[in-house]
């Protein structure tokens, strides 16, 4: 409202407010009716002024999607804006007679079209050791797959043509990456739409790809940051601790290094800055320098 209107007659402002109220009440009526048409069971959230609506939509493979709709006050003259956890949103077809139900229907059609894309990604997640993304979002179209000791492949699946040859990037040491890149260049012609993505990848790399982490023991995570072994050796000096696994890890969430308490204590004993109180040693993590407190372990 501009200032000229405010200094105008009281009558004018009243009339204006009435019109606004009338408009907003018709706006509300309209939204409630349209939400009802979509079905209240789909509604997750409705903004206080009804301009923000969140629906939960299930697609034909029972994957759930959250559809967020933001309405302009001039709705339905201007189309709503839509966002969702999908790789892209198709253009919304909108006319003066369109309703929220049409938005939902168009979205449903769109996600049904993307089924093949998500199935391809699910196949990859089931078959390989995917290290990124850790939690898959429906919108993400790449997978970083661990291959070999310190090497990864990043596959970007074509959203509209998921059975086509994906874009492939390699991460890791030059020597390993060059070998993989050569294999890829030579064998990518073998890629075929008739086979699933994992089958194609196995065909190209020849059964070298490690399985998902929950199917194999993740040994790298539990190696001691000091002696580099998962299990202590069998040794007279180590007594009862012989052959035991790592039993301490740095509490700094970004570090999380695992250690044998025996190794960590040995290290802390060898430097002068360590303090001891009863049977606990106080020092710093050799990796992140955050404070650590380790109980002295009985070796015998």
């Amino acid at each position, binding site marked *: 409202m501009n200032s000229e209107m405010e200094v105008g007659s009281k009558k004018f402002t009243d009339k204006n407010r009435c019109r606004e109220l009338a408009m907003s009440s018709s706006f509300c009526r309209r939204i409630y009716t349209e939400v009802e048409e979509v079905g209240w069971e789909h509604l997750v959230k409705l903004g206080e002024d009804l301009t923000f609506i969140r629906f939960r939509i299930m697609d034909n493979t029972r994957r759930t999607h959250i559809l967020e709709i933001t309405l302009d006050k001039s709705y339905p003259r201007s189309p709503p804006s839509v966002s969702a956890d999908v790789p892209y949103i198709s253009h919304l077809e909108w006319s003066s007679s369109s309703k929220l139900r049409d938005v939902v229907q168009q979205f449903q059609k769109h996600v049904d079209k993307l089924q093949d894309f998500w199935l391809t990604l699910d196949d990859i997640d089931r078959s390989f050791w995917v290290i990124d993304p850790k939690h898959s979002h429906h919108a993400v179209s790449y997978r970083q797959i661990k291959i070999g*000791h*310190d090497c990864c492949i990043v596959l970007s699946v074509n959203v509209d043509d998921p059975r086509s040859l994906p874009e492939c990037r390699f991460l890791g*040491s030059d*020597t*390993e990456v060059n070998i993989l890149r050569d294999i890829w260049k030579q064998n990518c012609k073998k890629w075929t739409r008739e086979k699933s993505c994992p089958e194609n990848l196995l065909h190209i790399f020849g059964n070298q790809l490690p399985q998902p982490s929950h199917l194999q023991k993740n040994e790298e995570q539990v190696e001691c*940051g*000091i*002696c*580099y*072994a998962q299990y*202590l*050796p069998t*040794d007279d*000096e180590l007594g009862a601790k012989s052959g035991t696994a790592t039993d301490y890890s740095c509490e700094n969430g970004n570090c999380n290094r695992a250690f044998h308490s025996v*190794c960590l204590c*040995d*290290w802390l004993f*060898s430097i002068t800055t360590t303090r001891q109180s009863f049977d606990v040693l106080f020092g710093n993590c*050799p*990796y992140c320098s955050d404070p650590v407190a380790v109980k002295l372990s009985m070796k015998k």
Partner: protein
Amino acid sequence: MTSDSASSRKALSKIASNRLQKELVEWQVNPPAGFKHIPTDNLKRWVIEVNGAPGTLYAGEMYQLQVDFPEHYPMEAPQVIFVPPAPLHPHIYSNGHICLDILYDSWSPAMTVSSICISILSMLSSSPAKQRPADNDRYVKNCKNGRSPKETRWWFHDDKV
């Protein structure tokens, strides 16, 4: 060449030799640029070739590092020296001893032979002038009979090089 100090004459502990084997494998898979490990049967003493980085005062020059591991590596730092002739550098003595904190007080088991090598190369690369430390003659005379640099009480005063 220096003789071994008393502690390093002992055989490696099981923990030390396990860890060194893993470091060696990792080195072979992923060697630090500019370095070459000369293969020997002796896990306790590594000899490593260093090539001066291109575009630095030491470009095109080649030196040898000798790395001796103590019985309780990695609880203790390895002894790292240049096999004479050592590069001319304000922190490197003519007998090959290197004044670098991570080899002594600032050692941590989170470091590796590879990370030490990278530090040494970066120390060489950042040198402003090819010269010996000011106290070179006095220090080298005191080190007669092959004293280990680990027995020296180092005074680290220069962060620039």
